[in-house]
């Protein structure tokens, strides 16, 4: 058995989740792939240790978030992609929501965006989110609060009554 087989197996088993998280963070197919690639390089280097006594799942998530937040803000890394993918011609409510949310996400800071993705896409608790981001629970609370305030300002329809319970759950 190749000593890298464990790493391969681990990544391939989570490829959909990893790809989707990276895509939510970047909003761009190429950047998502770049982000995944950079993250996997880091995880691969640590794999011998992780596979013995580590927590590969948590490490990978944290590596992904660290990589995303610390990405250099220069041209080749920063520029957003073109328009969102088109899915048919009918713009129903759900389609519009996705388009609007893409625009809102693009206007958040990286940490705010990461917090939204971790809390509402990965369904992590505040403590788990703090661990993934390497920050305190208080920071998670404040970043979530700011992200949701921005969401309310830019897309109040997404912050409708059905979402209030979510907001109250995470607001300090």
């Amino acid at each position, binding site marked *: 058995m*190749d000593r*890298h087989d464990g*790493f*391969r197996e681990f*990544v*391939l088993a989570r*490829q959909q989740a*990893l*790809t989707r*998280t*990276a*895509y*939510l963070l970047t*909003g761009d*197919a*190429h950047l*998502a*792939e*770049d982000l*995944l*690639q*950079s993250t*996997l*390089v880091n*995880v*691969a*280097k640590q794999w011998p240790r992780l596979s013995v006594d580590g927590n590969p799942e948590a490490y990978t998530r944290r590596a992904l978030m*660290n990589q995303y937040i*610390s*990405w*250099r*803000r*220069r*041209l*080749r890394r*920063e*520029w*957003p*992609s*073109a328009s969102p*993918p088109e899915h048919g011609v009918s713009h129903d409510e*759900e389609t519009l*929501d*996705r388009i*609007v*949310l*893409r*625009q809102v996400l*693009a206007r958040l*800071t990286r940490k705010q965006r990461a917090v939204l*993705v971790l809390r*509402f*896409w990965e369904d992590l608790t505040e403590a788990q989110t703090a661990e993934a981001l390497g920050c305190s629970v208080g920071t998670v609370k404040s970043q979530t609060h700011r992200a949701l305030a921005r*969401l309310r300002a830019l897309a109040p*329809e*997404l*912050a409708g009554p*059905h*979402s209030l319970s*979510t907001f109250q759950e995470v607001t300090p």
Partner: protein
Amino acid sequence: MTRLRRALYGIAEEAPAVDMAALVDQALAGRRRRRRVPAMMAAVAMAATVVATGTVMTAMRSSQPQEMAAPGITDLPEGNVGPLGYAYETPCKVDEKRRVDCGAAEWRVVTGAGETYRLPQALAMTAKDRRVPVAISRDGRKIAYYSRKDRAHVVRDLVSGSETTSPVTVKESRIGPGSTLVLSDDGRYVVFDPREGSKDPGLLIEVSTGKTVKVPGKYEAIGVRDGVVELVRYLKTDLWLMPVTGGGKPVRFDGAFMGFSELAPDGRTVAAFERRDEKKWIQELRTLVLLDVSTGRKLRNVPIQGLPEGRPVMFTGPWRSGSELTVVVDDEKGAHAYGVDIGTGKAHPLTDYPKALYLTLPGIVNE
């Protein structure tokens, strides 16, 4: 489910299919590709390289600069070797069983005359596998690197052959992910940023004396010239022309700008790209915006003509004169520098560089 969650799930489901097996192979080889190509080109390249997993490595090897495979490359000799054209880092080695050895990664320099030399004294990878950058002055005459032996930065003059080792020791462990290094035109100063984009402060070092000035972490250095450090804070966007002794204050631009050039020879203008409409990002990256550094006002837009079709600018480089700025685009063959007349916007080709994973060009900050 809330509308927010539903929309997030919807976007997540639009995530593209990624060839994860190929990414795993590349990760195991310690390689990162530079992807900044239009979707169609990327799709073609991917289709060509992942027909079978076994072909990926072969394809990647063949894409390295020719010099990397050339036998008999010697260490950089002492004395005058002439100005540099560029530097590149060799990739980790992968054997037939795909075992990876990153300890062999090293920096190599290529002179303007085309000679290639190894630069083993320049650390390429830290013990924690963090990449260590080098920087080349805009005239190619000097190179700055981190020396593991000296635990400090060294500036080598490629023409006089002189070397100056900074008396400021920097622990190797301080070099974090995304570390950057900037070298002043005259070789007197380096700016070391341990982790670009973080709050970790950078350090302006006068190499001969060891005098230092802290650079706030939220600013990133673009260049050092004529006793002034050009610093940019992204997103807001602020530009701070900080004297090398410290002081000065930033000016704020009205808008979000990125890809800043060094200060133009007139001392009042910088060029950048404005980020406004996500749907027009390629067009925006082909339109320079001239900015007044004293008032923060936008002076005018300069749409670039004559770049390869559909290619966004990857970097802005040095000003060649008061009216011509260097920009760099890349494609599947490598990087290509163009001179852009900022009066007419017309671009003409200057230099082609080979495709390399990590390429450092004169006067351009590299991570």
